[in-house]
């Protein structure tokens, strides 16, 4: 009874005076929030559709995260997960006390990261600038088709190809032998291992990595170049003042991602080639975890090293992202 009354007065008020109508509008909103069980019932079908994906996500991403507790245990494979005796921080002593094998792996990892950030990271930028300046659109496509291809080959294939080209009885040495020249020992040579790994990474992914830079280059407003030309800028100055600022955001984004991965260097690539080279030159953090854990059975120590590596990795991404924000860039994410 009273409801109808107020409603009718409101409708009259609307026609009578605008101030009253605002009061009517400010009445509690009619939108009712459904109780959670009602929402589940309503979205039942969607939840079922999400279930397999969520299950895989929880099983293979989040459950292993919880499984890191074995870093604080003396893991015994025959006991159920979580039943092994606790040992506190004992597994972390290899890191804290600087076990020589661990330090060697850390040093190799950092050397490879440094070399790859300096040599591998800028290569696709240079290649993208080169491709972008090509006159013929069709020729550019053809070059792209060829240079993108190695990205889709597995590391096993890439390593096999490098062995066939640079190995003892490979293409290069067959040629040198036929010319009566001395052969070169490249594959399996510890001194050249960093160079070999770096050239493999470049062969495989430089072409592919140009995609994002080429996309950024195509977004640059061509009138900027015309303006620069009117101002008398040379070609080099146009690149410096127009092209490079135009791809700055993408460069910073990818650099953040690379720095976040500082402790991760070519795991599969290195595992495949460790045999001939020896651990001193080839062990990195990921292979240390693999060799000590899955091969050597020191589960707790390997998990501890893996856990610290993962935590440092997350900290590096978050830190690099923060620095990007301070520099006025978007970075990988904004919170």
């Amino acid at each position: 009874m009273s409801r109808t009354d107020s409603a009718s007065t409101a409708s009259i008020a609307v026609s009578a005076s605008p101030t009253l109508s605002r009061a009517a509008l400010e009445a509690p909103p009619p939108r009712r929030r459904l109780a959670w069980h009602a929402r589940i019932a309503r979205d039942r079908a969607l939840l079922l559709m999400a279930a397999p994906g969520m299950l895989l996500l929880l099983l293979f991403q989040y459950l292993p995260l919880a499984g890191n507790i074995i870093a604080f245990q003396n893991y015994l494979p025959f006991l159920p997960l979580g039943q092994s005796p606790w040992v506190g921080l004992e597994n972390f002593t290899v890191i804290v006390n600087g076990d020589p094998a661990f330090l060697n792996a850390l040093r190799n990892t950092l050397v490879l990261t440094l070399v790859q950030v300096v040599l591998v990271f800028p290569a696709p930028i240079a290649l993208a600038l080169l491709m972008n300046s090509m006159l013929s659109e069709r020729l550019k496509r053809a070059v792209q088709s060829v240079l993108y291809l190695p990205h889709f080959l597995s590391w096993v294939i890439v390593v096999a190809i490098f062995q066939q080209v640079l190995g003892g009885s490979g293409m290069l040495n067959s040629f040198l032998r036929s010319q009566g020249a001395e052969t070169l020992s490249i594959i399996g040579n510890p001194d050249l291992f960093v160079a070999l790994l770096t050239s493999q990474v470049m062969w495989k992914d430089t072409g592919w990595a140009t995609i994002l830079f080429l996309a950024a280059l195509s977004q640059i407003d061509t009138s900027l170049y015309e303006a620069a030309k009117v101002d008398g800028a040379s070609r080099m100055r146009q690149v410096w003042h127009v092209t490079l600022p135009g791809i700055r955001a993408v460069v910073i984004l990818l650099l953040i991602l690379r720095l976040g991965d500082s402790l991760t260097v070519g795991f599969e690539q290195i595992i495949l080639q460790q045999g001939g080279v020896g651990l001193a030159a080839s062990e990195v953090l990921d292979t240390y975890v693999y060799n000590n854990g899955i091969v050597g059975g020191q589960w707790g120590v390997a998990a501890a090293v893996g856990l610290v590596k993962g935590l440092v990795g997350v900290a590096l991404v978050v830190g690099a992202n923060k620095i990007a924000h301070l520099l006025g860039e978007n970075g990988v994410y904004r919170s």
Partner: protein
Amino acid sequence: MTTSTGRAQRGSRHLPIDAPPLSMRALKAIVLIVLCAAVILPFVGIISTSLADRAQVTASGGFVLLPTNVSLDSYRTIFAGGVVSRALMVSLGVTIVGTAVSLAVSTLFAYALSRQGSFGQKPMLMLLLLSLLFSPGLIPSYLVVKELGLLDSYWALILPTALSAFNVIVLRAFFMGIPAELIDSARIDGAGHLMVFARIVLPLSKAVLAVIGLFYAVGYWNSFFNALIYLNDTAKWPLQLVLRTYVVNNTEIAATDLGSGSENLPPQASIQMAILVVTIVPILIVYPFLQRHFAKGVLTGAVKG
């Protein structure tokens, strides 16, 4: 006259920088030719060696750039029913089943995540995005697979990598771009979510499904490490592991391994290169399809993800 102005206009549209001097262009051409040759030449050498006959392989010391007498013996040998044939079947099976599982799970998940405001949609999306920030760690991942009883099972090659968060995000972005009116009107007509998904969303997403499917397939075909740690039974090895054993590690291939009746095998180098070719060819077959779409796919993910 008209052609020259036409070219000038085209030039200014596609090429923001003035045409460089001839020496500069020659240098660029040389650099690009060298780079393309560095990719193409190894393939030529590998295919040639796999096709060369014994006399030529012996004469060249193991590597042939152009075969004089083409011989298919090495292919006949590896397809005779031995370890390579079996590994090929394993790889094909894992790739086909894995891609089907991945596509089904990812598209369903992406559709559910694209319906904003539904129960649990936000937290589930957060969990998915968060998983991009960390990798779960090798040892705990191995232990989970072990505890699930998947060691020495083909499912260990499929389930741990079945869901790529990145692909789900790309699919979700694509599904969200489908006009809401289409979906809403079907919902008003009484279609359930599964019906909308199967009858409206999937048919409109054929291109993106093809790309994502190919990415998953290439991933399964190329994966080697999961097989290395999860399969102790060498009879279950996929092609990539066989390639590692006989080509990368240069293990001698015996006639018994290949199931070949004759002891007189083609030269090792030819057999090795034939295995390598068999591993590469499927990638080369799908590559043109991938290439047509991937730039688009990568960019959707990068922009909207």
